[in-house]
């Protein structure tokens, strides 16, 4: 029995100035129907490219070297498969300021999005209008259709993201990919958009992939979490379990760097900088920043292994029984 979405051993490179940079290494991910999964990681860890590979909208200089992606049993790495998958997957983006064309009224763009999803099927104007209205209501955009006559730049950031979500809803997706959907918004709006996404996944029986660098968001809105670092999945498992007992030093570092109001717990960061992906791939990708690293970490990349029920980790130290400072 295959999962709803399955990414298996995905390797992806980017060609830049005649050089070939490996960006994703051996990324695997599974998602079931109606499941909400978070992909967490720093900027440049390959979260967005993973999502774009699923949508079949990779940048022109990106090449998939090996691996498979199947959605609903269909291989999306073929042109036809990607087009078929796009019918059921919708994606919303980080910056609602730039992800809606500023020169067209909300109405125009929603109409087009709806028409594209019909594939030549005829619908009356009334049917279309009511579908657009119900999509807007589904995304909690109220305002008596006034929004429809507005241009994107006349809307606030939160409203734009709602319009974006409404456009996605028009396609009645069974999987919604939200790429940092709240990063560009202020905190209260963040909260509203997140609860909207959670509500939608429950009501519409949608699956959700939530890409974020914010662990708090992952914790609140997902059942499973994938932690990515330098183009690799370093830890994956049930969200609650990962937060209670992170096994990878990077995950632990991320959790420790969340500011807390509790004064007894001090905030800690992770030393060093994000690993450059064009460096020689010897040893664990995180070894240079890891305070637990042992000799073995510097020579070979560890594989993902299930070390706790449902929780996979790529770390030699964790394999040997836990994180002790050496």
């Amino acid at each position: 029995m295959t999962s709803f979405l399955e990414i298996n051993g995905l390797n992806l490179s980017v060609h830049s100035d005649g050089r070939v940079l490996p960006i994703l290494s051996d990324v695997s991910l599974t998602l079931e129907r109606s499941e909400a999964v978070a992909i967490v990681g720093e900027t440049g860890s390959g979260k967005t490219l993973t999502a774009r590979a699923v949508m079949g909208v990779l940048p022109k200089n990106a090449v998939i070297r090996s691996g498979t992606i199947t959605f609903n049993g269909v291989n999306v790495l073929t042109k036809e498969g990607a087009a078929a998958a796009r019918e059921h997957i919708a994606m919303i983006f980080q910056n609602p300021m730039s992800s809606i064309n500023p020169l067209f009224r909300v109405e125009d763009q929603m109409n087009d999005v709806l028409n594209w999803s019909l594939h030549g099927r005829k619908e009356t104007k009334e049917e279309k209008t009511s579908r657009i209205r119900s999509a807007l209501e589904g995304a909690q955009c109220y305002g008596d259709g006034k929004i429809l006559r507005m241009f994107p730049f006349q809307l606030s950031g939160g409203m734009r993201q709602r319009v974006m979500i409404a456009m996605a809803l028009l396609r009645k997706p069974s999987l919604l990919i939200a790429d940092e959907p709240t990063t560009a918004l202020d905190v209260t709006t963040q909260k509203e958009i997140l609860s909207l996404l959670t509500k939608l996944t429950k009501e519409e029986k949608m699956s959700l992939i939530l890409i974020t660098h914010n662990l708090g968001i992952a914790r609140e809105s997902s059942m499973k979490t994938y932690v990515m670092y330098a183009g690799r999945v370093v830890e994956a498992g049930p969200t609650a379990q990962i937060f209670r007992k992170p096994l990878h030093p990077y995950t632990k570092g991320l959790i420790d760097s969340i500011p807390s109001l509790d004064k007894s717990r001090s905030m800690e960061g992770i030393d060093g900088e994000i690993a450059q992906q064009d460096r020689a791939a010897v040893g664990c990708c995180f070894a240079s920043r890891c305070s637990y690293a042992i000799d073995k970490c510097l020579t070979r990349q560890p594989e993902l292994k299930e070390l706790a029920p449902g929780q996979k980790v790529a770390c030699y130290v964790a394999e040997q029984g836990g994180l002790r400072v050496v």
Partner: protein
Amino acid sequence: MRFAEFVARRVLLALVTLVGLSLLIFYLSRILPANPGRLALGPYATQAQVAAYDRELGLSRPLYEQYFYWLWNFLHGQWGLSIVTKDNVLHDVEIHFPATFELITISIILTSLIGIPLGVIAASRRGKILSGVVRALWMVGVAIPSFTVGLGLQVISSYWFHFNAIIGQISVPPPTHVTGMLWVDSILTGNWPAFVSTSQHLLLPEIALSLAGIGQIAQLTYSGMLDETEEDYYLALKTFGARSFALDFKYALRSALIPVLTVLGLLYASLIANAFLVEEVFSWGGLSTYAVTAMQSDDFNAIVATVIVIGVFYVVLNLLVDLSLGYIDPRIRLGVGH
């Protein structure tokens, strides 16, 4: 701000510009170190005759008085006599302007109709031959002056292809006068032989005039379109199932057109003054030729009139460009920052 208010504001600004232009050109024409009476009457006229001539033209009165007198006459179609043609300047302009206007308007239409789609298609098949063609066309167009292209075309077409419509506007009896634009008139009056002849005569000067513009507009559209395909909304609409035709020609082109329209406006306006060399090469006898002759002979009524006509053309064009930018980009029309 509604669209009507936007239009009214721009029209008002255009009028202010025109008043400024008329003041400036009037003043400049009156401080030229030339003696129009002496020039008109020749070296053998007596001082008294010259003074009488100046009085007749009102040249002895204070400048501000002359300005209002001149403006009043100008608005009533009295543009003064040309020293060279001895005719009312308005009449001269009526003869010469349509020829140039037709030439450059067809050129700008060709430039848009060829240049913009060329840029869009080149951008949609990145790395393919067409983008190279666009780049080459652009460089060639910028590097070779249009009159050189004209001369080359004349030599090639007459020498090798025995195509003889290389000078003038028409080589059969002209069509009945409607607008003064021969090609347009031959269509309006259904005059087939005149239509064929004017089309042939238009061919070479249009190529010479449009080549550089086509390259420039295609290149500008091309790079604008490439930028648009990098935008988030482009990706977003693509994931929402947009066909690439709708995406390119509706969504991306609209943004990419903003700089293109501005440059098209500038091109069009610059053509009216710069078509001179091409007009010379093809013995076109348009407004530019008239203006240059006027300048060479200190024919100040003609100079003032042609400068004003060209100025009005600029201002009207700018207005049209502003209005169409406002139409395309709601942020301009509604006065909001990006």
